[in-house]
């Protein structure tokens, strides 16, 4: 035993060399944010595709012919409502109210399910009209981008159901809070991407 090291009265204040980089306390949330940023790149490249190929109709239907803007407006409202109701769930979580959190989560999930349902019906309608992804470069890029976003929302719903069961069974534990917070970032991020989709793909597509 080195007794001099314990002599705190006479020896000068010990200096420690900290080899570790200082790191934020919520490492998971930063990591998840970086995942979302990488997801951003996927969507950015798909947006670039639709921007470049958006007018290559191959003598097929144009954006004006196939896009139903009324349906799009309803769809957009569903996703926005889903985003804000998920926010309400997070507020209830901060107040430690489990039942209210679950209720708002269910509402957010139902809005998102309505969004996916409307999108699937739009897709099947397009395919039946002969405007499927194999028709033209415009439709290929459109189906890839919107389909990728729809798949994200679908997996978000699966994640939401999983956490719904988790919170129902184990309550608002620290782990579940962290998970819900990650899902809320994912959820709001998807609504953000949808703003790009309905503006740059649908509305600009109809205009140009």
């Amino acid at each position, binding site marked *: 035993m080195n007794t001099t090291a314990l002599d705190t009265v006479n020896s000068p204040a010990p200096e420690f060399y900290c080899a570790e980089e200082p790191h934020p*306390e919520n490492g998971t949330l930063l990591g998840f944010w970086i995942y979302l940023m990488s997801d951003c790149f996927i969507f950015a490249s798909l947006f670039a595709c639709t921007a470049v190929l958006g007018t290559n109709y191959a003598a097929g239907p144009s954006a004006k012919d196939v896009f139903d803007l009324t349906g799009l407006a309803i769809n957009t409202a569903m996703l926005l409502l889903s985003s804000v109701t998920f926010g309400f769930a997070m507020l209830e979580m901060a107040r430690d109210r489990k039942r209210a959190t679950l209720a708002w989560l269910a509402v957010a999930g139902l809005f998102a399910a309505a969004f996916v349902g409307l999108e699937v019906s739009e897709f099947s309608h397009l395919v039946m009209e002969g405007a499927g992804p194999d028709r033209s470069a415009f439709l290929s890029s459109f189906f890839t981008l919107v389909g990728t976003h729809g798949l994200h929302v679908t997996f978000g719903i699966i994640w939401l159901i999983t956490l719904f069961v988790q919170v129902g069974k184990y309550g608002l534990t620290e782990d579940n809070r962290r998970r819900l917070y990650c899902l809320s970032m994912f959820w709001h991020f998807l609504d953000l991407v949808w703003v790009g989709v309905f503006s740059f793909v649908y509305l600009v597509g109809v205009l140009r």
Partner: protein
Amino acid sequence: MSRPSEESQAHAVTPAGHGHDDGNAIAHGTLKGYLTGFVLAAILTVIPFWLVMDHVIRNKEVAILIVMALAVVQIVVHIVYFLHMDTSSEGGWNMLALIFTVVLVVVVLGASFWVMYNENANMMPMSPQYVHHHLGA
């Protein structure tokens, strides 16, 4: 409305190292924040839909630019009010990652469009006969 004071308290406590309860320390936003974001997003959604569906603006380019500008504004609204992004979250690392991403996304989108537009504009003009005989289209 006791939320804002709770919120500032949580922020004041976090840097002191009370990391054992980080579930509560993270920014949840406020009801007012979510409602503000919702109203702004709704307005910024209704305007471009109205512009396009009612053919308000005759000039196509101007209409496209306005729709795009409104989308960018709405994306910022989402980032601020729904994702609670500010320069202090995660010690600034979130913002750094976001800025990095935005720069790369602008390069990917801008450069793709620019390059492909020039490729397209500088294509050798082809007659329908040439396409038919040489490309088999």
